[in-house]
């Protein structure tokens, strides 16, 4: 079984050889005292003396760092076309990309911002200005991308969410969120503080380039609509799309092409 998986992996990566090269890196996280895997997808034109932009792609709940490549293989070709590095880190099965206030072993916001980004910038030829750094994700990763970008605007200039859980409060018993921030009964204040839709009350996100979308059959549609309405009422610029689709790979694999195009536009403005 294991051998077969390894072979498939080799095959997938091998078939991209002509347009890109893919590194699997182990990044040590000091804050969590463990090493975390990430894929780094570089266009075949990548050269050490020519720094290029970076897009970080976060996976969803219950998945891992391979999800984006498996569900949306077209990102390899598009990464080449937009001349950018794509970084696909592991975010744990259910971290929600938080620094957990009740579990000190979960430090994924710190990992992404303070450990992963500096590692990538030192190991690869990247443009280190935030205008050339974007972060996006699906589902839990959509929440993670917005949560991290909004709270770390000196690091990220653009953020995208694909059917993201942009408000976690309607889902107090789902996806082990209560193991990260406590139960909603015991720690109601955490659920107000850690949900993306509330961040925009206390943080000015008007300078951040925001894009998000959701499928019309998705269980996260209502929280995405609520986020769109709230941003409109606060006059905060953002791209928002609704389209046919459900919470699945077919939707993500389609949506990411538009979000990468959006990031390409942002990179080329600078």
């Amino acid at each position, binding site marked *: 079984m294991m051998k077969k998986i390894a072979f498939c992996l080799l095959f997938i990566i091998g078939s991209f050889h002509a347009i890109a090269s893919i590194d699997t890196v182990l990044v040590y996280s000091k804050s969590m005292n463990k090493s975390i895997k990430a894929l780094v997808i570089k266009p075949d034109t990548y050269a050490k003396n020519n720094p290029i932009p970076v897009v970080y792609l976060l996976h969803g709940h219950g998945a891992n760092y391979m999800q984006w490549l498996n569900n949306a293989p077209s990102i390899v070709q598009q990464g080449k*076309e937009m001349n950018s590095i794509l970084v696909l880190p592991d975010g744990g099965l259910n971290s929600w990309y938080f620094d957990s206030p009740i579990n000190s072993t979960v430090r994924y916001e710190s990992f992404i911002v303070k450990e992963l980004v500096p590692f990538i910038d030192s190991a690869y030829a990247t443009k280190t200005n935030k205008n050339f750094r974007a972060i996006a994700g699906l589902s839990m990763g959509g929440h993670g991308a917005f949560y991290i970008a909004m709270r770390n605007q000196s690091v990220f200039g653009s953020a995208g969410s694909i059917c993201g859980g942009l408000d976690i409060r309607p889902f107090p018993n789902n996806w082990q969120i209560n193991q990260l921030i406590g139960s909603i009964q015991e720690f109601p204040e955490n659920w107000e503080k850690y949900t993306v839709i509330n961040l925009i009350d206390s943080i000015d996100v008007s300078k951040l380039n925001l894009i998000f979308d959701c499928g*019309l059959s998705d269980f996260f549609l209502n929280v995405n609509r609520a986020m*769109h309405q709230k941003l*409109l009422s606060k006059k905060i*610029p*953002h*791209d*928002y*799309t*609704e*389209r*046919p689709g459900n919470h699945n790979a077919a939707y993500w694999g*389609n949506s990411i*092409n*538009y979000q990468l*195009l959006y990031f390409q*536009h942002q990179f080329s403005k600078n």
Partner: protein
Amino acid sequence: MKQVVFSLFLFFVFRLSAATIDTIAIPSASMHRTIKTVVIKPNTYTDGKQFPVVYLLHGAFGSYSNWILKVPHIKQLADDFQMMIVCPDGARTSWYFDSPIDSSFKFETFVGTELPKYIDANYKTIANRKARAITGLSMGGHGGIFIGFRHADTFSGCGSMSGALHVTVITRGYEVEKRLGDTGVNKQYWNDWSALNVIEKKPSDSLSIIIDCGTEDRVMPMNRAIHEKMLKLNIAHDYTERPGNHDWRYWENAIDFQLMYFNKLFKKQVAQP
């Protein structure tokens, strides 16, 4: 010096392989005159391949040359997506209607029937609805939806950017009254030919639809209305709201997303040789 010559050579090779543009006068049998049209062919046009076509319509008081002059990078998009782009003239304010009061305006017939026939006969197209889409800006967004729905046997994709999608309420300033006549006498046309109402008749052919609008645009309410109505009628469509106004800065951005959408549609529907 050698290096310079070599670079120059590369430059010309590159130039030669970029998209090419024909500006032609296409005969309209229904209007007994010719209509100017810009035809953009991708860089590999001479390689013996056949290409899908996006018909791209201009806005009120515009012309066939608007798109190529204001958004020259659509040539690059034709190359990137290996598609043809055809921009017909819409006679400033035809609204892409066959006017019930002026027989010299038959623009639904021209754009929906005569033009695709001519393009298929004279260019190396994939002559199939699965490889044809129509979209445009403002009045042309209206045209994209109006013609897309009424000629779904010809087009499998239709779109609108900042579309003036409800002509029923555009009673002055944009010459709709010159095409549809008195709002009382011709009330039926004013009502039935609004894109917002045209969608009530769902075509038997499948239609892929993409609609977008800028949040600062005056036509935003019409776009929200058609989005809501399509949701209610269960008409699948992509719908985007993004920052922007009714201007070329918006359209030069929006067109990239629309053509990506149609490229995906063509790739899905047409087997690649």
